[in-house]
């Protein structure tokens, strides 16, 4: 009987350990797969040309696989989206967690969750139908399919993630901190800005990064509204082509195996590396702050 229970424990512990390492194994396998499918490109194209080439012309003769325009497009659109979404998202979370009356808070949270539930293709559709003509008319542009349009929609899509994670982080700040602050004669605003937000900072940072992760990996919306011209955008009013949209748009039309096919995998590997580095950096920052 005793042995049976020990065995049971042994089995379950191994099962739990297996689930624990499964995600790591899957991630390593994905990386290896990306790597393996990317490498053949560099038999014909130099790494330097791939990383620093300014022309993405995969079906020209001869083709050119320079990813600078794609990286520039991704950078312009995602950074702009984050710059817009972070203050609004954190501000909304502060309002929800600290200021809004309870009834209103429940209603607003429901709205935020509904926003998160909208499929990205629907947001893209609304973007084409409403935002694209608006951007064209308001800024007097030849086309409304611009980096700005994509950034605005991506910011909208990042908001639910940022708001709900940030609100959780603020809600997790112990009530005793707030009471101590009020008891010292602080106003609500002083309590929020000097005690609650600093106490929640690692969670707020996590919110920002998860929002950023949502934005950088998003494909459908940017494919639909950014115009997809593979040029380096000179401003947010130019069309842009993002790495994700490139892979989605072109993968269906490649011959396998071909230079083009391998080049798309290489783009995927670059995207993966970028998100990995962002997360790693974020992790470091969060830990560094906690240690202090």
């Amino acid at each position, binding site marked *: 009987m005793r042995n049976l229970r020990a065995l049971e424990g042994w089995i379950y512990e191994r099962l739990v350990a297996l689930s624990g390492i499964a995600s790591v194994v899957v991630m390593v396998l994905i990386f290896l797969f990306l790597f393996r499918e990317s490498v053949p490109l560099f038999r014909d194209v130099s790494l330097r040309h791939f990383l620093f080439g300014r022309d993405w012309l995969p079906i020209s003769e001869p083709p050119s696989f320079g990813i600078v325009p794609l990286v520039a497009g991704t950078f312009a659109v995602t950074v702009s989206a984050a710059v817009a979404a972070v203050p609004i998202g954190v501000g909304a979370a502060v309002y929800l967690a600290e200021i809004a009356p309870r009834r209103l808070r429940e209603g607003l949270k429901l709205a935020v969750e509904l926003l998160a539930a909208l499929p990205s293709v629907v947001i893209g559709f609304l973007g084409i139908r409403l935002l694209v003509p608006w951007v064209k008319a308001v800024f007097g542009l030849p086309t409304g399919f611009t980096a700005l349009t994509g950034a605005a929609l991506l910011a909208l899509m990042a908001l639910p993630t940022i708001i709900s994670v940030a609100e959780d982080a603020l809600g997790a700040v112990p009530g*005793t*901190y*707030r*009471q*101590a602050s*009020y*008891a*010292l004669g*602080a106003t609500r605003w002083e309590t929020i800005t*000097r005690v609650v937000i600093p106490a929640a900072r690692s969670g707020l940072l996590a919110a920002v990064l998860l929002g950023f992760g949502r934005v950088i990996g998003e494909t459908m919306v940017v494919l639909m509204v950014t115009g997809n011209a593979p040029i380096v955008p000179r401003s947010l009013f130019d069309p842009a082509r993002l790495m994700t949209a490139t892979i989605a748009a072109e993968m269906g039309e490649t011959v396998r195996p071909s230079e083009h096919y391998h080049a798309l995998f290489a783009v995927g590997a670059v995207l993966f590396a970028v998100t990995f580095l962002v997360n790693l950096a974020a992790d470091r920052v969060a830990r560094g702050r906690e240690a202090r």
Partner: protein
Amino acid sequence: MADKIRVRGLSVYYGELQALRRVTTSIADRAVTALIGPSGCGKTTFLRSLNRLIDLIPNTRVEGQIFLDDVDVYSPGVDVVDLRRRVGMVFQTPNPFPKSIFDNVAYGPRIHGLSNQRRLEEVVEQSLRRAALWDEVKDKLRHSALDLSGGQQQRLVIARALAVEPDVLLMDEPTSALDPISAGRIEELITELKAEYPIVIVTHNMQQAARIADWTGFFLHGELVEFAETERLFTAPKEPRTEAYLTGRYG
């Protein structure tokens, strides 16, 4: 002795529930007043009425008057922020902010407008000395307050309250989360601080009240049953309910 606080017919309701029933009493200046009674008897509610921290709880209604230096703290013109600066509070569980030791003590002075670094350093040192913590932390003011022991954290919180130069100190079971040695140090500190401040302390521990308090009030079911000099209350209670509690027949 002069009374610092006079409470007249104080009733507090949480929604339908009446937590305090027409409490009338006075708190003496430069003395320790202990409030005892079983859990849920209203002593913490009484304490939180004094600095209006109770305002933070929704659906709370307060009747009656509390005079701090002859001004009713519930009258319409009162600045609650200033009231809370004047009435310092220490909580049951040590609750330093997740900031450095220095920034914890400097928090109050900073929000009240002190920004001169030299002055801040003086205030922090003076407050930590008065809370009997300076010698233990003077070399690590930049360290996180959360690295201190529970007893040190509670003295830090007292220093933080002293830094805004309050007129009154309220303490809500300040030693209940501490080991006996740390609790003893807090008791010593309270005895020292009463030379400068009126102190109101809620305690579950009757021996503690007997050791440190000059005045003791016994609460039961929201009522202040008896209020007297500590020695008189413990040795010759006038109310049968007080005697029953002191001899262990309640709570």
